[in-house]
């Protein structure tokens, strides 16, 4: 039904995974019952991380303003993204068909496909 369905097994609405990153971090980094793990990063590391984070969060906010929101569009992180991914693929296929119908095959290379775009940028 809605994109929230798979996030909340019921709509008692624990915040969806798209909750404010700073809020998530301040909780998952230093809260919860701490018991000694076999593999762990020590607390000092976590402190340093949080400091680095404060810098990082600003870049996330900037990215958000610029419309870059991979955490909301990554299928692994959001079911809405999975939905969007289908939509996107569909759109790209349509574009590609249109292009193939209209142009010769040489131009088909310029059709924006994620992979192709990455290739171009790398050059």
């Amino acid at each position, binding site marked *: 039904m809605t994109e929230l369905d798979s996030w909340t097994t019921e709509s*008692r609405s624990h915040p969806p995974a798209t909750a404010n990153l700073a809020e998530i971090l301040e909780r*998952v980094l230093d809260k*919860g*019952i701490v018991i000694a793990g076999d593999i762990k990063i020590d607390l000092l590391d976590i402190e340093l*991380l949080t400091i680095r984070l404060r810098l990082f969060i600003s870049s996330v906010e900037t990215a958000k303003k610029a419309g870059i929101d991979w955490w909301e569009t990554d299928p692994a992180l959001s079911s809405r993204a999975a939905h969007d991914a289908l939509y996107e693929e569909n759109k790209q296929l349509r574009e590609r068909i249109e292009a193939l119908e209209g142009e010769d095959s040489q131009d088909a290379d310029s059709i924006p496909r994620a992979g192709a775009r990455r290739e171009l940028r790398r050059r």
Partner: protein
Amino acid sequence: MNSAPHPSPTASPSPVAPAPTQAPAPAPVDGAGSWATYVFAVCRSDHPGSLSAAFGHPGGGPLRLLKVGSLRAVVQDVPAAEFSETALRERLGDAAELERCARAHHGAVTAAAAGGPTVPMPLATLYLGDERVRAAVGANRERFRLALDRIAGRAEWAVKVHLTQAGTSARSAAPGTGETAAPGRGPGPHVSGRDYLDRLRSRQHLREQHRESALAAAEQVDTAVRRLAVATVSRRPHGPEVTGKDRTQIMNTAYLIAEDRSEELTATIGRLRASPEFGGVEIDVSGPWAPYSFTDGGELAGHP
């Protein structure tokens, strides 16, 4: 609102009931291709255990409930190579990767919390195998039981109070002040230096006044919400990196609130927002969160 778990909308696998059998065989502890056990949370044995396969760290097995006496640990088999100390330090030092990990962790904790009282573990709580988890959780079983009792039927809410720039300037730009601030110009011909300084001073004064009243507002928020809460934890307010330049966070507090009082919370916040002394003050509320901040207590609020 509705309490039955929804099946996933489309072709994705239906929520997997306790699915231990699908886990990759947690094989030899050391060496390439081995698995570590990642612990997200601990809950009670009556937890329904319907944890969707959609949660957990990418590349790992499905979430499963590991029996530890009368407790259940919410665990996932994860590739040991990606969760070694060195690998973790490197990965968590990378902003994008850290965010992925944090969100994966939070997603699993939240999913588990939807099924009943759940004590979240901090990010990256890892063991060499299930036996080690049983030993560690078992050794702390009293702490877990206490925490589970404390949080049962309750959830965490975050309330943040901000002073907005709009509020500040709206009040300080009282008629007659303000103009002299034109950049690159000294006091105009009709304005003495003394007048100019007076205006600066009064503007400063207004700003301070506004800050004072915002602090008073924050206190009012805290008092009102505390009345509904069983425990509170005050956190350091976020800086401008998080809030943006045009608002200043003056309160960042977490409250542990009974689930059946969440509507009262909404009503209380709504009432506060509407009251006249809250002009230029913003109240952000988020929740219900899994009770991250209250697993080891928290300051008791006055009213149970």
